[in-house]
């Protein structure tokens, strides 16, 4: 994965065919899990109403991301260039992409039992967890590249 062009209106990346396929696949998997409630405070026990609002907002945000996810893997965003694919993202699209990839990564990690060291070996896992391990690593690969390839 390489950054070909970065302007104010967006980013263009060059992906090899396997990367283009994998990126589409990961985004299609979002959301990996059902929405689960979050805590707003560890110590403030009087924050029930605030927590309710937080969870409503997070659930709505996830629904919005689901719609954006479909848009991010629309076929017209990918353009063949030799054997590779050129992939275009607006700055807002890139931000949504980062949130989606990170959501997939974090939720897969939860499905794997929240290990302290996420660098798991798939051969040590029961078969039903292998998919989550692969997805977690793949999402991390793209997340790392989308962040690392940005020019300041």
């Amino acid at each position, binding site marked *: 994965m390489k950054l070909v062009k970065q302007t104010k209106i967006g980013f263009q990346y060059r992906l090899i065919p396997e990367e283009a396929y994998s990126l589409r696949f990961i985004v299609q998997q979002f959301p990996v899990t059902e929405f689960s409630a979050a805590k707003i*405070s560890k110590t*403030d026990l009087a*924050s029930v109403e605030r927590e309710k609002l*937080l969870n409503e907002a997070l659930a709505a945000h996830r629904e919005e991301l689901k719609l954006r996810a479909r848009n991010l893997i629309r076929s017209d965003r990918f353009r063949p260039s030799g054997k590779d694919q050129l992939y275009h993202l607006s700055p807002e699209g890139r*931000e949504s992409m980062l949130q989606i990839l990170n959501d997939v990564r974090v939720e897969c990690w939860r499905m794997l039992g929240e290990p302290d060291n*996420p660098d798991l070996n798939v051969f040590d896992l029961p078969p039903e967890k292998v998919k989550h391990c692969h997805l977690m690593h793949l999402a991390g690969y793209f997340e790392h590249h989308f*962040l690392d390839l940005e020019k300041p």
Partner: protein
Amino acid sequence: MPMPPVTEPMTVPGPGVRQDTRSDDRLAPTYYVICWNDPINLMTYVTHVFMKIFGWERQKAEKHMMEVHEKGKSVLAREGAEKAEFYVHRLQSYKLQATMEPAQ
């Protein structure tokens, strides 16, 4: 002919009209916005999110990210309830473990 002296009309605040709310601000509860460490969020991602949400320069965002990583948590802001809630919503929408805790 000399004009009669003109006095500025004086506005007297009616009962219940506050002229100064500073003392109220001091009494309003404030909250620490805290980001907690976890083993899954990438360090570059955490830095990116801090820059995005708080508008910080990379150096400041990295300082807080390292504090989360090394000390287990970092206090990102001290705000009134509404603003603290706003920050926690935004941080959690990025999947960071953030909470608001009453400031003593």
